[in-house]
């Protein structure tokens, strides 16, 4: 087990290193001199030259890459152009808790609602409840995150005036997280419902469920105590697979609801042309996804010994 964890961990580091390589070259080769992107169009030639020198963009690419890696190892990802010229790592780190609050809340919401509806649907296949659930899941999976957000604002802020449409938890308390978390977790509710329903139906057909049913156990016990346990493995996979999608979705959700997380920071940094901050946000988000992936693999290996060997 220890060896497996180490192996996955090393692979994760290689993946992350590949990402830093990609970010480094794409930002330099794709956009020409990054300084021209960072400065407003009316900047003078002297400004461009000064900033180019300050960021070391005039040095050969290999040397730049060496410095980039050296700084990276020391946890230095440059200083922001906006945000009081603080180190970008500090600026991004400050925004991480808000994004974690939002993603965790929407995950919890999606799992709880998705699992409950999915399990009830599976226990009464082809009932009205099941049919309504199925149709809503199909629609739910097709709605873009930002439209769900707009609809929620339209209903709960504009018409009912129940919930605030902007701000973070610090300013608004728990009321502020309801709409952002729902809009971000909406498509996940649908996918959890579908996967729970289909795996539960599969499990319900298995011999051991037939046995406990034959023993005369009440249906509710059969579902929650026996079937659900075995149906929870795919749910678990889905949970983590979706984290990457959530981090992406957070960009849109945080923008609509003025949520002070890293998604909004990214959009702001793009508007302000703060290239070092953009780079750090992307590296942070990638590192987070890589870490989650390793966690999933290790937990899998722990649950299922066959994976460890292959």
């Amino acid at each position, binding site marked *: 087990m220890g060896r497996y964890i180490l192996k996955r961990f090393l*692979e994760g580091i*290689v*993946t*992350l290193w*590949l*990402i830093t390589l*990609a970010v480094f070259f*794409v*930002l330099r080769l*794709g*956009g020409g001199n990054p300084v021209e*992107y960072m400065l407003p169009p009316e900047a003078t030639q002297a400004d461009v030259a000064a900033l180019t020198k300050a960021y070391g963009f005039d040095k050969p690419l290999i040397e730049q890459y060496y410095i980039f890696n050296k700084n990276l190892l020391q946890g230095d990802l440059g200083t922001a152009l906006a945000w009081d010229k603080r180190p970008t790592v500090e600026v991004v780190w400050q925004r991480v808790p808000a994004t974690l609050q939002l993603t965790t809340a929407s995950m919890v919401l999606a799992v709880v609602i998705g699992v409950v509806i999915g399990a009830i649907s599976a226990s009464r296949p082809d009932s009205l409840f099941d049919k309504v659930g199925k149709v809503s899941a*199909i*629609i739910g*999976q*097709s*709605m*873009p*995150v*930002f*439209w769900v957000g*707009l*609809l929620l*604002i*339209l209903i709960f802020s*504009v018409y009912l005036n129940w919930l605030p449409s902007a701000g973070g938890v610090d300013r608004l308390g728990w009321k502020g997280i309801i709409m952002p978390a729902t809009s971000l977790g909406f498509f996940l509710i649908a996918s959890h419902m579908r996967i729970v329903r289909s795996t539960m139906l599969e499990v319900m057909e298995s011999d051991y469920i037939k046995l406990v049913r034959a023993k005369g156990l009440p249906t509710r016990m059969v579902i929650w105590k026996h079937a659900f346990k075995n149906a929870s493995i795919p749910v678990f996979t889905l949970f983590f697979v979706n984290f*990457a999608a959530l*981090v*992406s*979705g957070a*960009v*849109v959700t945080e*923008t*609509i609801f003025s949520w002070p997380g890293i*998604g909004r920071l*990214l*959009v702001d940094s*793009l508007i302000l042309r703060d290239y070092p901050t*953009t780079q750090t*946000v*992307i590296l942070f*988000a*990638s590192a987070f*996804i*890589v870490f989650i*992936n390793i966690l999933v693999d290790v937990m899998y290996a722990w649950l299922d010994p066959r994976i460890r060997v292959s």
Partner: protein
Amino acid sequence: MFSLVFLTIALICALFAPIIAPHSPIETNPTNILKPPSITSGNLLGTDNQGRDLLSRLIYGAQTSVMIGVLSVLLAATVGTVIGLVSGVYRGWVDRILMRVTDGFLALPYLMVALTAVALLGSSVINVILVIGLLRWMGFARVLRGEVLKLIEMDFVRLALASGASRTRIMITHVFPNITNTLLVLATLEIGLAVIVEASLSFLGLGVPRPMPSWGSMLRDSQLYIYLTWWFPIIPGIAITLLVMSANLTGDWLRDRLDPTRRQL
């Protein structure tokens, strides 16, 4: 059924937008802004904040969505197929490197990267297609590689190998024709996602350049007027949802249709 009908409608809108649309999608009319939908006024679905006819923008928006959706998926499918095929047929260190690269791409927060890339390259239809296509090929590569690995163990491929066919030949004439069904299903399902990504980019102001109509940028405009108009934020959203849903349902249907073992389920 429903999904095919809607896909056809979207396709017709996309192809014949100039004929179908009752008004110009970009012509503004300051005296006729934020009008609610009505049958009598000539603006069936109302007008936006600049007095542009929403129905016309919706029809032209279908053009944008369908074009970007299809072309970016075509690009993603091409890249993904080549990587999946090469990985599965050649195996060894080629496979290891390609799969590592695939993992790297999978670990990218794609919307963040897409936004940044479009911001750096400048927003244009071509750039949006390139960015979406080059960030979404990993699914194709992963799934197709799995299929190839299964196929390569089969007798007809072994026979071809034994009779001296080169790996490239096997890849093109023996393996590829057998993965086209999977490819088609994946591509259909991926179109829905590409449409959502394009709409998200446009919603954030970094998709197709203005004043070109896109459902995403229509929703972006509507956000400012959400306290005044209920129809403005609702109408483009319905269009996106229907298009994505149709693509998803068609993909599911194709999968069941092309794979006899799933037909009973």
